[in-house]
């Protein structure tokens, strides 16, 4: 019989699947801004924030919510080759497959987009845009100028990327959504909702306020870090559940395991 903690730890495997999205107040607010931004005649929308603040998750949620109602395409992984990028854009707009030996001409693509003006409005969701080259970003900018193609892009917030963002988008982005780490309250909701969603009510009830505070003290409310931490916690739980179950309390969450996981991840030094 496999331990329930095996299934529980899997919940916290870092992914951007629609199922793993958790409704939080801050995320809901950002989502509404993003959705309303798409209704406005904006060329570009920028999701800006440190890694692990839920940018990709929000983009993913937007895609799944709107894919039935409007023309929307999601590039979850950055396409670094310019040739491949232009091909993907063209294929998404035209719904045609281009033979591998053929290349999309950028001028041709621009003309193609201009011809679609007032007929169609296509949204592209581009994740991890800090990896795109400057020349490619320039092409994205020119494509957005046609007002046929609208881009929602995500950027990591670091000094370098901030400069790129300023240089490329200062005249074009009218909506900048800055994402930040969750506070203690949001983090508690995030963890609890995730567990309850998968039916682990009993375990979620074992977690006390001080446990959430402890988790937050190490992860600083970063969702990616939190997932990693909880995965490690339940990995250790799984061991004790299977090998030394007498060491586990059924009423309270083990502080020892919280600390062991923190040692394993290097948050504290044992």
């Amino acid at each position, binding site marked *: 019989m496999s331990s329930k903690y095996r299934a529980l730890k899997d919940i916290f495997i870092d992914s951007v699947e629609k199922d793993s999205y958790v409704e939080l107040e801050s995320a809901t607010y950002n989502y509404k801004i993003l959705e309303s931004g798409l209704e406005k005649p904006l060329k570009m929308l920028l999701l800006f924030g440190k890694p692990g603040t839920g940018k990709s998750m929000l983009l993913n949620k937007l895609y799944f919510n709107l894919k039935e109602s409007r023309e929307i395409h999601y590039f979850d992984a950055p396409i670094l080759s310019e040739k491949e990028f232009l091909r993907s854009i063209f294929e998404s707009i035209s719904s045609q497959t281009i033979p591998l030996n053929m290349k999309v001409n950028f001028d041709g693509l621009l003309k193609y987009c201009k011809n679609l003006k007032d007929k169609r409005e296509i949204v592209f969701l581009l994740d991890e845009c800090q990896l795109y080259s400057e020349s490619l970003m320039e092409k994205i900018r020119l494509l957005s100028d046609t007002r046929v193609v609208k881009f929602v892009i995500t950027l990591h917030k670091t000094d370098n990327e901030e400069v790129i963002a300023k240089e490329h988008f200062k005249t074009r982005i009218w909506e900048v959504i800055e994402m930040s780490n969750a506070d203690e309250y949001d983090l508690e909701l995030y963890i609890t909702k995730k567990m309850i969603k998968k039916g682990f009510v009993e375990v979620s009830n074992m977690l006390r306020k001080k446990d959430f505070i402890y988790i937050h003290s190490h992860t600083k409310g970063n969702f990616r870090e939190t997932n990693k931490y909880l995965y490690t916690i339940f990995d250790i739980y799984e061991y004790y559940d299977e090998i030394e179950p007498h060491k586990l309390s059924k009423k309270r969450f083990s502080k020892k395991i919280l600390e062991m996981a923190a*040692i394993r991840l290097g948050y504290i030094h044992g």
Partner: protein
Amino acid sequence: MDKIRKLEQRWYRYKIKKVGSSMFIFLLFPLFIIGGYLIGLNLDKIENILFNKQNSSSLEAKIVAPKEEEKNITIITAPPLTVLPNIEHKEKLALEPVIPIIEMEQERTKSSRTKASHRKKVVSKTVHAKRNSYLTAQELKRGKADDDISSYNGNRRDTTRLKKIHLHSSSIDYVEKMKKKFSKSRNPREALLLAKEFYKQGAYAKAENWALRANKIDSNLDESWIIFAQSKAKMAKKEEALKILVAYYNKTKSDKVKVAILRIKKGKI
């Protein structure tokens, strides 16, 4: 499995460290309190050292708390604050911290006596103005020889003016004499008398300085503490003055100091 066991061992080590550091802090905390308390008790010493550094580089006066032994002697043999002419008793008292107070009293009496005798001498030398009377030739001669301050307004003398000048000059003389005396003898009582004199004159900074000198030589002089604190109070440092006196009172339980504290508190200084 091995990984978890190793992790558990690391956790035990972490816990030992954590508990150890908590225990260390737990033990350190009362030490801090005790240390703080001791520092509080000796605050006057520290302040005195700092004060001396600021005021005079040559003067390294510090207010030293009376030693326990001396304090004990004081408690056992402390005599009433009266002048005791018995020499034998005086010698005995010379070891005791309260003797300066007594001798201060003696000194005061002595000084008042000497002042009185001096005054007498002055008076004997001084020509008294006689109402509606002429001075005799002898009187006139004595008056001229004494000083040329005397002034005549017709056949009348301005006695008030003469008195004033005389007192003033005697005060300066007194200070100078005492300073010379002190530089030779290094007697704390002389320093204390100077402190008192300066205090009377309103030169509180000087009074404070001389009180410190006296205290440096003999830290058991209640009067030195009192003059020091009173001078501070006069220089708008009432709180500091009280702090110093209270700290001293806590050690000596001197009634004089207690009275001085109350007077400073009530603003009667």
